[in-house]
């Protein structure tokens, strides 16, 4: 089953979070947005034009929740071009290899280049890794492209894949995020606290955090609200939101209500804010009678 949507509703960061957590294998395709005259409604009933997929702009392929390859329409993904961009081949070498090596797959070409001492295996892995990351970080700044994630669609045969842990990609992508509004929507309440997920040792293995992020991690405790952490780290609301959002999306921390925190107050119809009465109190036998009745309905 394919996952379809638009980055305006479900961002690249959220897609990567889903792929990472569900350990999905497949290919994400992003398309140029084509605005139509047809109107659709969002969840609040607000009308807006339907955006349909145009020309394919980028693809990213994943195996078991790890990013392995990415390509973008206007980036030539040929191995020679990738190595030239990484400074491992000069322009003339890249041109010659492209011309003469056009009949070979990337894997075959890589072997020839290694055997001819043009590059090392490490050079190739590093260059492809950087090429893949450059594309994905670029995609993470897009905001209204239609997307489709097709499960179990593998990279084209012969392409070299370099597995990359998505947690670091999500955190770095969040650092680069330009738009702050989605962060406020995703993390509106800074009175909540943070806790570590189960087996945090596994989750943090191989994760590269900045000094700023490690400082926040040092204060993660269900007793500390995000506001308190921000104060302890001398961060603004925007700064703490950005860090916490990245950690959340990477699955490194979870939100939790701190002990003693009063139930949130809600906006009443008359505009006042108050805590509403609790839910109904009923006896167990009433619920059991309801169950029996619905079963026979």
């Amino acid at each position, binding site marked *: *089953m*394919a*996952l*379809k*949507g*638009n980055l*305006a*509703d*479900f961002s690249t960061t*959220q897609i990567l*979070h*889903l792929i990472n*957590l*569900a350990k999905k294998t497949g290919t994400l395709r992003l398309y140029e947005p084509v605005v139509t005259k047809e*109107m*659709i*409604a*969002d*969840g*609040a*009933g*607000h*009308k807006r034009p339907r955006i349909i997929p145009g020309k394919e702009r980028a693809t990213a392929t994943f195996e078991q929740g790890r990013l392995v390859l990415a390509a973008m329409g206007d980036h030539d993904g040929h191995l020679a071009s990738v190595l030239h961009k990484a400074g491992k081949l000069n322009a003339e070498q890249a041109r010659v290899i492209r011309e003469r090596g056009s009949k070979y797959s990337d894997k075959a070409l890589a072997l020839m280049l290694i055997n001819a001492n043009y590059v090392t295996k490490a050079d190739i892995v590093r260059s492809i890794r950087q090429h893949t990351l450059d594309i994905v970080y670029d995609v993470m700044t897009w905001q209204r492209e239609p997307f489709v994630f097709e499960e179990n669609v593998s990279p084209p045969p012969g392409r070299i894949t370099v597995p990359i842990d998505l947690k670091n990609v999500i955190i770095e992508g969040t650092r680069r995020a330009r738009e702050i509004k989605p962060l406020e*929507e995703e993390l509106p309440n800074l009175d909540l606290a943070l806790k570590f997920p189960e087996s945090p040792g596994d989750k943090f293995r191989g994760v590269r955090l900045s000094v700023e992020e490690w400082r926040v991690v040092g204060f993660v405790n269900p007793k500390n609200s995000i506001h308190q952490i921000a104060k302890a780290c001398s961060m603004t609301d925007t700064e703490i939101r950005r860090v916490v959002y990245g950690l959340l999306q990477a699955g490194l921390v979870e939100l939790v209500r701190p002990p003693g925190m009063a*139930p*949130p*107050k*809600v*906006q*009443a*119809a008359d505009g006042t804010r108050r805590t*509403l*009465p*609790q*839910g*109904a109190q*009923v006896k*167990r036998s*009433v*619920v*059991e*009678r*309801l*169950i*029996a*009745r*619905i*079963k026979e*309905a």
Partner: protein
Amino acid sequence: MQFVKMVITGPFSAGKTEFIRSISEIGAVTTDETISRDAPEYGIKPQTTVAMDFGRITVDDDLVLYLFGTPGQRRFDFMWEILAEGMLGFVVVVDSARPETFREAKSILETFRAYAPTPYVVAANKQDHPEAWTPDDLRIALRIDDHIKLLPCVATDKESVKNVLLELLYAILDEMDA
């Protein structure tokens, strides 16, 4: 006579009215209005719920279950609080095939959790739609905790709706035992 109430909530056009219609023993009392040309929802669907849907399941002479469906549009959200008061639990209906409604679904869920700490379940509706996201993917997309039940649902199918309501009632029993 004892009356108990459950609330069926969710984003605009998620399938709340259908959900109640499928299980209610009376022709569900709806307050659907034809959408006027001036309304922002004109052209999306022919009618919308402006105040509430209302369904009833009579258990016996002493006990009746009422199902109240909330209006999905934000401009009618003043009704939510009134409908939530005294509820036994609630169901959040999500259109699994429309990711443009997921953010609102999450927001509605948080709002109802704030109204009262009653048990709730999430119904991943329209699972018969070819573009429906699976319940497992929806759980991650909506950040639903593992201990909250997220159930596949087709609101037009009575058995599917029964299953969702039963799971909510089981969750209520679990809460009583805790």
